[in-house]
């Protein structure tokens, strides 16, 4: 992990006005994470909002390039630098490696009848949300809220299955 001074240099490099976002992001993605040595170190604390914005812009660029490994490493560094930032905390949370819990709950009932109805009829409702229970259609509407309201009126809403039927590809 680079030290704080190197991290600050990275952020200074990020906010240089020349070059487009991609070029700036590329400049920060050298394997060792080091910015060109000609960049002066930032004065810690003097430009934190700008540096924070630059750090988040770089994170956004990494995610747009689908470089998840680098994005996770970067957000860890942002979190160390700005532990109290709500925006950094948000991205740190959504990029965290997920924890999976296994739980022996109530066994889900078979959906054989719902699947049979969908095979036979779902194609008749392109672009609609459907609610199916057994071999019965409960509701069909393009508006999800309408279908959800119909399901919530059921005695056991959790027994229904919601399904979106896509429109056929042109």
């Amino acid at each position, binding site marked *: 992990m680079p030290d704080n001074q190197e991290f600050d240099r990275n952020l200074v490099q990020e906010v240089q006005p020349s070059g487009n976002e991609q070029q700036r992001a590329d400049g920060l993605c050298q394997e060792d994470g080091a910015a060109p040595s000609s960049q002066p170190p930032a004065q810690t604390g003097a430009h934190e909002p700008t540096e924070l914005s630059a750090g*988040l812009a770089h*994170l*956004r*660029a990494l*995610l*747009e390039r*689908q470089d*998840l490994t680098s994005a996770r490493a970067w957000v860890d560094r942002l979190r160390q630098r700005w532990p109290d930032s709500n*925006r950094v905390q948000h*991205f740190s*949370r*959504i*990029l*965290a*490696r*997920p*924890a*999976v*819990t*296994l*739980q*022996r*709950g109530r*066994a*889900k*009932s*078979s*959906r*054989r009848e719902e*699947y049979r109805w*969908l*095979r036979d009829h*779902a*194609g008749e409702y392109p*672009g609609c949300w459907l*609610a199916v229970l057994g071999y019965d259609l409960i509701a069909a509407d393009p*508006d*999800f*809220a309408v279908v*959800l309201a119909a*399901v*919530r009126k059921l005695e056991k*809403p*959790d027994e*229904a*299955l*919601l*399904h*979106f*039927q*896509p429109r056929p590809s042109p």
Partner: protein
Amino acid sequence: MVQQADYTLIVAVECLLSDLPPMHAMLDTAAQWSLLPGPVAQAMGYSTEPDPDTPRYSTRKGSLHGRIEPVKLTFPAELGEETLMEAPFYICESWDGPVVIGWTGCLEALCFALDARQYEELFYFGAMPNPSGG
């Protein structure tokens, strides 16, 4: 852990999103993010206002701009244990497709397999083994 899958969304799996009733979602191993249509997100109480810090998301239906939020996700099982996780979902008001189960923070954390034989259509899933062997 076994769950039946369906074919109408190519591969659709049943899941529970927060407190909504059971729902089909399209399983897409090529999708960077799981994806929520705006109305589904709103039903769970999430804002659909785009977040300027959130990257645009390129899909086969075009480039989307929205926000990413952690959502409680459960895969119920017909056999064995259900799987619970908090997965990040890209929320976009203009997405007019199904709920999508994608890679980041979701499929990457699961071991899963599909049996696509007609009328079998099973989705096997479980947690990633602990690398320490525990």
